[in-house]
């Protein structure tokens, strides 16, 4: 009888324990863009599932509709996403509109220090207001616009000789944007192995953010600034400075003279396709594509090389990409979501993240002595991350972005008006937006 009682009690205790465990185990939904790194994150997250008992679900949306879909979700207070790897420009709106959970206390309580991450990613992905210690995300995926080129074509002796004769210098990785344009024009319409190839695939997409993410790589390096560094939201003479106008003219000339015909609405996917299919000698794209390029049977295996965005007359900068991971304020599973962030911040998890193809922003990973040689593109990634600049991250970023898309595309692709008119128009648009926001 006693034995029977003990057995029953033990069984009951076990059942209760398993029920308690089941009650704690959550199903978390992580929302992000549908792209190669997302697949790597699914792999990585299996470790989290094994360790925590939580189940991970993923909601991935293609980049061109990512902002539409996810901002709609946030704005409607939806509970689809517990964790959001949102674009860097969303951080202002995420913070001010109450979409994201502030993470300072959580970081302090769990020994997560922002000093352990690449500073540019902390500013770009986590802080709002910028340059203040208010954190709304953990840097999750470092990314930056860089260039991929056909190393095998650059190394051909006959092309090297012709380039040398035409331009008086070796056909090599360009140090400046002007050199890049020369190289792109050199390849434009050239016959290589019986196929007509073109100079460069650049971002020209009209609908979402494409052309802005591309043109800024020229604008920054020619002297464009978002605002007066001494007076916030003072735009006149900074957005439309003489240097900025020259930068925009450069981008248009590159588009007109050195890109494939029909590339008037190209973004990440189209550029990848053009490069992989051997249509172009160079492509502008975010660094996330590089693991895929290396593995590609047509252009990988040493046939492609990588270089950071070349310098211009006003310096060398590159457009920041990448995202931070945030806990959505409308989630009913915030504790489990925070557990995921705590797990994700661990150095060994970050190291595995890099191995799987995710660009870790943890300094312990990228400053490891073996990092620069761990992949053919690793050094370029490091060099590029050191020169990043980002678009506005204001709550009104979408208005600011659409105005820029409109002005820049109308000039650079549609050929309407002058560069000066386009940037003067942009100043007017942005001024109106900041006035509406009560910031001017």
């Amino acid at each position, binding site marked *: 009888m006693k034995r029977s009682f003990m057995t029953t009690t033990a069984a009951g205790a076990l059942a209760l324990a398993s029920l308690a465990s089941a009650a704690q185990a959550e199903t978390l939904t992580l929302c992000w863009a549908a792209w190669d790194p997302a697949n790597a994150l699914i792999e990585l997250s299996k470790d989290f599932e094994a360790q925590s008992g939580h189940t991970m679900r993923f909601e991935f949306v293609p980049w061109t509709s990512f902002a539409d879909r996810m901002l709609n979700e946030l704005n409607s207070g939806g509970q689809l996403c517990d964790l959001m790897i949102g674009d860097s420009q969303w951080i202002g709106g995420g913070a001010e509109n109450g979409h994201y959970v502030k993470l300072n206390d959580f970081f302090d309580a769990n020994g997560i220090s922002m000093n352990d991450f690449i500073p540019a990613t902390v500013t770009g992905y986590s802080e709002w207001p910028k340059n203040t210690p208010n954190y709304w995300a953990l840097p999750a995926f470092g990314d930056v616009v860089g260039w991929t080129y056909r190393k095998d074509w650059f190394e051909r002796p006959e092309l090297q000789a012709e380039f040398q004769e035409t331009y008086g210098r070796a056909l090599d990785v360009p140090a400046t944007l002007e050199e890049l344009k020369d190289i792109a024009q050199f390849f434009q319409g050239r016959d290589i192995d019986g196929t007509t190839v073109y100079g460069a695939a650049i971002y020209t997409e009209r*609908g979402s953010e494409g052309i802005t993410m591309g043109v800024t790589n020229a604008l920054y390096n020619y002297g464009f600034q978002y605002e007066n560094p001494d007076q916030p939201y003072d735009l006149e003479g900074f957005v439309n400075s003489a240097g900025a106008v020259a930068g925009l003219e450069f981008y248009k000339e590159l588009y007109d003279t050195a890109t494939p*015909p029909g*590339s008037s*609405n190209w973004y990440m996917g189209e550029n990848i396709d053009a490069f992989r299919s051997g249509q172009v000698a160079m492509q502008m794209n975010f660094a996330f594509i590089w693991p895929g390029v290396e593995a590609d049977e047509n252009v990988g295996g040493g046939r492609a090389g990588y270089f950071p965005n070349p310098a211009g007359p006003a310096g060398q900068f590159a457009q920041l990409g990448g995202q931070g991971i945030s806990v959505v304020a409308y989630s009913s599973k915030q504790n489990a979501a925070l557990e995921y962030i705590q797990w994700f911040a661990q150095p060994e998890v970050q190291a595995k993240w890099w191995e799987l193809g995710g660009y870790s922003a943890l300094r312990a990973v990228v400053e490891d002595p073996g990092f620069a040689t761990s992949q053919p593109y690793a050094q370029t990634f490091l060099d590029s991350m050191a020169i990043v600049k980002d678009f506005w991250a204001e709550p009104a970023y979408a208005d600011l972005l659409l105005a820029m898309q*409109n002005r820049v595309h109308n000039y650079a692709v549609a*050929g309407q008006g002058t560069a000066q008119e386009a940037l003067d128009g942009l100043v007017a648009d942005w001024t109106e937006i900041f006035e509406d926001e009560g910031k001017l």
Partner: protein
Amino acid sequence: MTISPIDRAAAGTPHGVARRIRGLSDRTIAWIFVAPTIFLLLAVNIFPLIWTIRLSFTDYRVNRPNNEVSWVGLRNYERILSDPAIWDTMQATAHFLIWTIILQVLIGFTLAYLINMKFKGNDLWTTIIVFPMMLSPAVVGNFWTFLYQPQIGLFNYVVAFFTGADAASFSMIGDVHLAPWAIIIVDTWMWTPFVMLICLAGLRSIPDSIYEAAECDRASKWRQFWTITVPMALPFLMLAVLFRGIENFKMFDLVVQLTGGGPGNTTTLTSIDLKREAFERWRTGYSSAYAVILFVTVFGLASIYVKALNKVKQR
């Protein structure tokens, strides 16, 4: 004695309910039946419309739940109607609308006329012709971007074959002058069969006896066409124009897939612009005013057109 089903139902109905129903007038019973439909109509159509009109007088932004909403009067309407960019968009929409309707009516009616001649295999041809309209607009937009590709696109090769021009020398969706025509071509390809089907219904509704009488009067085929075929098919043609006009005024998916509204704003139709204002810039009050203007425009034009259609029918 056998009991009929009606008697059984009457016996099974509780006295209270039976008495209550018996006491209701026909009008009340009719209202009871219609009420759910009216309620749904109010909830799904009328309430959102009234709410949109109300929002159009505010500066409400759905992505700023913490902001105070202010009444701005007619400011949103003034800003929209005085914005040259919006008039450019209206112009692009009008260009698209007018040319698609002209081409679809001409080609659709011609195809219907040919199919109506009842030749061998015309059922097969009808099936082949209507195939494009069975496809999803997103799919059509996507594969036409490939057809329009300067390097690999079939369209450019066909043009190059007939004109001798270099296939890669022009880009249908990348050129500001060609892009508006690129979207017209695709919409015409996709929706001409719809116009054809309506016209075919019209042509088949004309009694053969009228043509036989005309033959007796020795009317030529040309005269029969203009005095019998066209007038009798006209109400159907006008109906097709109405359907295509309303649909193309709202055109969104096909053009977004094809051009994204570019290059520049050359193919940014009003619905694309409205979507950007409402769900990318999140200017809810402003976009509500924009939607109201478009609604009034479509509703007004459609009402005038329907009156004209009714007059034609009554002739």
